[in-house]
């Protein structure tokens, strides 16, 4: 395990050095860009969106902001080696394919998504006031029911975050993905309700589940484990436990402030939680 973790790091300097000698991605031909677009669509779009504007699992790659380094060499490394501790896997592309993908990404213009002009300090307060922190942890403090948001902006576009706040049911966040199950679909932060034999209902999110058992975080944020044979029913709903924040609950201006705060949450490359940039 230790060997596996250390080896790639030992290799990085040499290979990164070699990659620096690679073609300038801004001078790529139309053919290369088209090739990159095809590779991107086939391999990257399931997480980063069909037009690279971000999806449920991957960040917007058109924003011009690169959490793991913005040089061609850094992006090359991110694509080839992945980002440990995130959903971004290592990829077996050939060097020329990675350069084509980078050329394609460089050719994209930033999307006309809502510009975030809010006040992040106000947003940080709102995060407490409107209840986000009761369920979401940031840098070690907060609730446990929803996803930890310490590096949310490194993985989600602002547009996606706004949608998640306004319409949390629209696209549920992914929860556990079993690394032993290569064709599996991750569990989601949908609502699960266990109905006990006496009719008592216990709702929450599934931390894990299989044919016979379920491991839950209840809405009250306690861990509960059940054998399905001991309960009356297990009901899954494609519905988030998070309330939908309409404009009456969170005005457009407040949304700007809140997302401005979320935009500062980018963690750090080596897993050291860090607020701001």
């Amino acid at each position, binding site marked *: 395990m230790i060997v596996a973790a250390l080896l790639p790091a030992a290799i990085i300097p040499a290979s990164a050095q070699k990659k620096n000698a690679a073609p300038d991605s801004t001078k790529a031909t139309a053919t290369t860009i088209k090739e990159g677009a095809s590779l991107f*669509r086939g391999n990257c779009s399931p997480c980063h969106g*069909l037009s690279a504007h971000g999806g449920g699992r991957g960040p917007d790659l058109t924003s011009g902001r690169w959490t793991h380094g913005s040089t061609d060499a850094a992006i090359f490394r991110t694509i080839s080696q992945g980002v440990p501790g995130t959903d971004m896997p290592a990829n077996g592309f050939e060097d020329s394919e990675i350069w084509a993908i980078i050329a394609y990404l460089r050719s994209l213009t930033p999307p006309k998504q809502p510009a975030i002009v809010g006040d992040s300090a106000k947003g940080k307060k709102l995060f407490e006031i409107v209840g986000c922190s009761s369920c979401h942890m940031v840098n070690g403090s907060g609730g446990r029911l929803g996803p930890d948001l310490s590096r949310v902006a490194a993985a989600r576009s602002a547009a996606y975050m706004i949608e998640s706040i306004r319409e949390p049911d629209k696209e*549920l966040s992914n929860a556990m993905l*079993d690394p*032993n*199950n*290569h064709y*599996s679909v991750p569990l989601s932060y949908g609502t699960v309700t266990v109905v006990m034999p006496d009719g008592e209902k216990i709702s929450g999110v599934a931390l894990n*589940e299989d*044919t016979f058992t379920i491991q839950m975080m209840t809405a009250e944020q306690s861990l509960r484990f059940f054998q399905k044979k001991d309960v009356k029913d297990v009901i899954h709903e494609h519905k988030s436990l998070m309330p939908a924040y309409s404009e009456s609950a969170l005005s457009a201006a407040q949304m700007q402030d809140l997302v401005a705060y979320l935009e500062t949450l980018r963690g750090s490359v080596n897993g050291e939680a860090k607020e701001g940039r």
Partner: protein
Amino acid sequence: MKTNRPGISLLGILLVMATAISQAQVTYERLLGADNEPKNWLTYSGRYSGWRYSTLNQIDTSNASRLAMQWAFQVSDLGQFETTPLVVDGVLYGTGQNDRAFAIEARTGRAIWRYQRNLPEKLQPCCGMVNRGFAMLGERLFMATLDAHVIALDAKTGNLLWDVTAADYHKAYTFTVAPLAVKNEVIVGVSGGEYGVRGFIDAYDAATGRRLWRFDTVPAPGEAGHETWSGDSWKTGGAPAWITGAYDPELNLIYWPTGNPSPSNYGGERDGDNLYSNSMLALDADTGKLKWYYQFTPHDLYDYDATQVPVLVDAQWDGRARKLLIQANRNGFFYVLDRTDGKFLLAKSFGTVTWANGIDKDGKPIVNSSLQASPEGTRVCPGALGMTNWYSPSYNPETGLLYVATSTECDIFTSAPQRYRAGHDFLGSVYVPDPVARPTGALKALDALTGAEKWSFPYFSNPNGGALSTAGGVVFGGDSDGNFIALDAKTGRHLWHEQLGAAVYSAAITFEVEGKQYVVIPSGSTLFAFALP
């Protein structure tokens, strides 16, 4: 063990020698009569008919709840563990991830030898560095390797006996299949349908490794069926053959299914039916010549490989005894064919199908042509992984049921045009599971002659593991969440399960050693053996 010591006689020595010789040899005659020696598991599906059924009945519906682990064997490698081990006279032979292989004492799980192929660095298996098992003939084990070689190992030592190149792995030709041994032949089919290979099924001489015949699954110019490919599309047409077929010795026919055309999810540059992709092929066992074919999914756009083990059943059909071939296909339909001539007899969906509105009386799908991969995405059922997949079904002659692991997954297909480059993936669209309806699975029991569902045991996740059924009235399945499960074969009632800690990517086998029936299942990188205490 008995400890009496009889006087040694010459006859006794000769008898012992004769026994030793017969035990070390898996003759073709033994393979033909595999159903008469249920103590062993001699070929991929247990017998040539593809049943994955055993007449062993020590473990039955009354005692399966007491199953207990007897041993575990660690391959110690990551990735999907898809092997079906063989068991011959107390020795279990298996293959593992990255073309590892091993022989172990079947009673204790202790290794006798281990083998690992020295693989080149850059290989292109679509779906993991997997291998599904050995074939055995005589004292030799045969393995088809990820770098597109076929090799023979000495069963007692694991030493390499011969090694032949079947195809060029640089162009993404690979093998994952467990070979089938018939007469003196070792039969294999290639993988690579996601990379624009031109598929084939080969037979090699078990003694020397010399290639005896090849059937190209995509016809060349001048060959029948070539007209089903537009332009040069046949050159990269796919139609791999990556699952072990069945064999009917009376007809001397090998039944071998084929996979998707390439590119798998875009048909715009390969107009036509694209023979012999997604087909059942009946090949003469001696020559490899095509006797008949039946194509389940012509001009496929959704990756519906027909690579599910064909099951050979003899039954009354329309008032007369008939030799049938049944298959629950990845495209969502259960089929009955006449295996003498390939005549289509019946098709019935066994779950939600949207790509076709049914199969007509001639066996042609009534295709829903509005469902094509589109720039914005099109939802199609079943998804690209199919309503079932390569994981083995099991046929139980006592219940007359076919046990099939099934998935509810539907996928969103989005067009992603690609040009062919040797050794690179060649799909033509990208697909993701429908994000709203999380896919689940089931182990279903289908009437083997009508396809009607008799029972269904729900799995929480879409499956990767198949089924084994026994004369003890038990059917064994494995789910993707690591549960190894025993059910009542008649009713689907849960009898027992054990959590193994990693997804099951294979189907169980069973055998007997010293009066004890074992059931063996791979999970993670471990082979687990269960028996009654």
